[in-house]
């Protein structure tokens, strides 16, 4: 599993938007909205949600 975190520039409202892309075997599994803690594209399984929760808890996300 490979992931990629992107902090994207200002939006219409001048806000920053942080997303986290999770890929498995070269395919996008989920594009995760770090601010609102919701999937923007794809869906997160229970296992993946736990993993995201762990990383957030450790302050790595």
């Amino acid at each position: 599993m490979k992931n990629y975190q992107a902090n994207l520039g200002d939006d219409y409202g001048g806000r920053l938007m942080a997303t986290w892309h999770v890929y498995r075997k070269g395919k996008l599994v989920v594009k995760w909205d770090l601010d609102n803690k919701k999937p923007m594209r794809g869906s997160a399984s229970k296992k993946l949600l736990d993993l995201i929760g762990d990383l957030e808890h450790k302050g790595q996300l």
Partner: protein
Amino acid sequence: MKIRTISVNRRKAFEVRTSKGTLPYPFAKTDPRPTGADPVARVWIDKELDSEAFTYALGSRQEGTVHVEQVLEYNKDPDYLRDRLVYRLTLEAQKRVGASSLPKQEIIRRLVTPVLSAHRSDELHEVRRSTGVLAAGARLRRRSRCARAERVTARLRLRSRAPRGPLSLVPRSDGRAL
């Protein structure tokens, strides 16, 4: 969106070719940043990231990855900005519907929104085309507003009006009243 080809141009930028055309992405936005002393040694489309990103290696063996969304965001792609705007509006709508004490049917009735459309707004993945077209149009209108104003001014041959000062009360030289 997948990257088709990636190259380095002579303007200190990557050139990313996608289905939307060739988009530049400057070195200045990347981390680690390529410099004259530490140039890009190799750049490739990252297959592990579903060809949605490219990875580059510097002479010092440092590596960096850039996602296509960063490229689209830098180039202010209207479709990409529309999707982000619609996503944020959807979140806001969900938040307000959740905070409201009104039943959903009543909100739908007051908004005069088709029931199917309102229910679809619950799904974050749903992007309404009409809103998207509006958002993209607003973006384009904002950009072209200055140019359009100049065109209209030129067409109507409008001139800036000279500021009017107070009326002179000094009698005219021929002695007639003002």
